[in-house]
């Protein structure tokens, strides 16, 4: 039963959603189904809420500054170097921490 539902859902999605029914369905105002114009406006609002939330959190986050990490002891499993890269001993973007 569940498999059949998943399969029919997948088939509907692959056929481009349930947008083209054989007979046009009537939309009742109480049926809970909304048209695409309504959905567009709804998701536009959700996007704006998301952007505002992200901006506030970003400002809060960046104003805190980033923590300072102490150089760890030279454990053998850190800073592994087996052979030289074509451009030199260090990775292209990793010369900052280990000298």
């Amino acid at each position, binding site marked *: 039963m569940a498999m059949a539902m998943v399969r029919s859902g997948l088939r509907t*999605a*692959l*056929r*481009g959603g349930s*947008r*083209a029914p054989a007979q046009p369905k009537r939309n009742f105002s109480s049926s809970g189904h909304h*048209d*695409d*114009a309504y*959905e*567009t406006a*709804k*998701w*536009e609002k*959700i*996007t704006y809420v*998301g*952007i505002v*939330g*992200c901006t506030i*959190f*970003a400002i809060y*986050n960046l104003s*805190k500054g*980033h*923590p300072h*990490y*102490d150089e*760890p*002891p030279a*454990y*053998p*499993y*850190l*800073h*592994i*170097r087996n052979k030289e*890269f*074509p451009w030199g001993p260090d*990775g292209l*973007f*990793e010369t*900052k*921490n*280990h000298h």
Partner: protein
Amino acid sequence: MIESQRHSYHLVDPSPWPISGSLGALATTVGGVMYMHSFQGGATLLSLGIIFILYTMFVWWRDVLRESTLEGHHTKVVQLGLRYGFLLFIVSEVMFFFAFFWAFFHSSLAPTVEIGGIWPPKGIGVLDPWEIPFLNTLILLSSGAAVTWAHHAILAGKEKRAVYALVATVLLALVFTGFQGMEYYQAPFTISDSIYGSTFFLATGFHGFHVIIGTLFLIICGIRQYLGHLTKEHHVGFEAAAWYWHFVDVVWLFLFVSIYWWGGI
């Protein structure tokens, strides 16, 4: 469509792009190995191979757009085949990331004695998941909402709104990539710092690469929407981009929960 054709399938014309793409892949692989082993001419062959692949991608997809948008070969049944194909591609991508999660859990669930028997390994300072990573989670979720906004706008025939929505999606995607770049730059560990660094940068790096691919895909969709290529009834390219974007989003959620959060405790 050709008038004599009595079926709705798309029989493609002969094309040079499969063989040119294959040769590009061969040159990239051989050149990459040569470069990494400091052979003479390795860098040249590698660059040539990459240029060849990028060129093939451009002209092949240009041809597909001409066949679909201008020549009308993508009938309903062809569209169904394209959707199946893209869905299978995403399934293969899931398996690709499954392997990296396997490597991560293999290494973190039973940390070896060589790294101190703990996870994260002794000496590794981890990133705080509730700072930039959580912000990036919110950004990707908002971007997912924006692509849904774009989808409904296309279905509602609101062409301008759809372009705005795609611009919002792409901008959020670029901000995500920017924060990831900043986080990488400030990270106290590198890919060569123990199995932690290896699994972390392999998984998050390939995710970042997929975010960039998805961003390019969405940019192309935005341009095509602006040019009026996408209609209410026919917008398979956009659907594929939206599916891909949601896939990238879901992979991030798994990365966030397992590698950043659980793996950092």
